[in-house]
């Protein structure tokens, strides 16, 4: 049985696709057979972030509607063995994702994969509901910013009431907080909510903190999951998050600003 993990947030632009790409790559790098599914029908972008946009022939909706087999639609990653991508359809309506259709595909994937990572679209509409419905675990991607935190709380409510686990009265979906675009300098100046603030408000366990970093844009420009930038802070922060997802204990890093010398702090400011 595969573990089904949804990457969700409510709000758009917080880093769901970046996170889906890095978490799935990280799991596969450790030898787990992993598939990452793009649920954003009509606005697919995971293929771009994973650098396989020119290899898309069939997609998720084709498989649901029986126009292609799963093996025809799955794209094998060129960098990491045991990583596969199932792209979203760019031309169909979100409603093409039916509950039964999604279940059929997930059941078939469950037979051969260890991890199924579902990259949710923004919002709380049909596509987002389908992405979280079958989840065993949820990574709630949040920016330290008021609208993102509020939307994350909303999506937590939906996970607790509208997921399959909730409807069937099973154990609840396991929730993880992933704080992204974190800027410790601004936190220290009192301009940004701190990790502790967000943890206190959302009250779910912290999976990781990804520092705001130039590397993230540079990586996405090239179609490289940022976790493969192994020397970068953001890459290492994702690596830590994957380790914690697998049950390892890792101390949280990149949560304080880089220490400046006494004199630069006194006279240079910022």
């Amino acid at each position, binding site marked *: 049985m595969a573990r089904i993990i949804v990457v969700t947030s409510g709000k758009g632009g917080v880093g769901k696709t970046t996170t889906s790409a890095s978490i799935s790559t990280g799991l596969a790098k450790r030898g787990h057979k992993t598939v990452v599914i793009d649920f954003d029908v009509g606005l697919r972008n995971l293929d771009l972030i994973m650098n396989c946009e020119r290899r898309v022939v069939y997609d998720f909706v084709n498989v649901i509607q029986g126009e292609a087999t799963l093996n025809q639609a799955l794209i094998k990653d060129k960098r990491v063995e045991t990583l596969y991508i199932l792209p979203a359809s760019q031309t169909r309506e979100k409603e093409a994702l039916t509950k039964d259709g999604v279940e059929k595909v997930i059941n078939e994937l469950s037979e051969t994969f260890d991890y199924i990572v579902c990259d949710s679209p923004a919002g709380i509409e049909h596509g987002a509901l389908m992405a979280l419905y079958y989840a065993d675990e949820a990574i709630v991607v949040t920016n330290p910013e*008021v609208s993102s935190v509020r939307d994350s709380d909303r999506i937590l*409510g939906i996970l607790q009431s509208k997921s399959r686990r909730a409807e069937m009265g099973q154990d609840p979906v396991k929730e993880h907080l992933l704080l992204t675009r974190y800027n410790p300098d601004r936190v220290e100046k*009192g*301009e940004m*909510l701190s990790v502790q603030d967000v943890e*206190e408000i959302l009250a779910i366990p912290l999976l990781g903190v990804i520092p705001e970093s130039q590397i993230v844009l540079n990586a996405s420009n090239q179609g490289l999951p940022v976790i493969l930038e192994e020397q970068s802070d953001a890459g290492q922060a994702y690596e830590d998050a994957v380790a914690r997802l697998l049950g390892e204990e890792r101390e949280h890093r990149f949560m304080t600003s880089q220490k400046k010398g006494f004199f630069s*702090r006194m006279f240079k400011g*910022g």
Partner: protein
Amino acid sequence: MSFFDYFRSKKNSTASVAKERLQIIVAHERGQREQPDYLPQLQQELLQVIRKYVQISDDMVQVEVDRNDHCSVLELNVTLPEK
């Protein structure tokens, strides 16, 4: 950050304003989330019944459910207009 800012209290920072606002709105929205689905309609119907006898506006009837370990309490608050 200048030399003097370094000693300035963080109490009135925008981040603490954000935290306070979020705590209030999130608590409020969670409260609503836990309410049963029938509550809005119950509120409407109660309003209609009361209006047969007293003229009140929509916001003068508050219906809430409080859940404890052993029982749930339906709390009905009706504000009557001054004579």
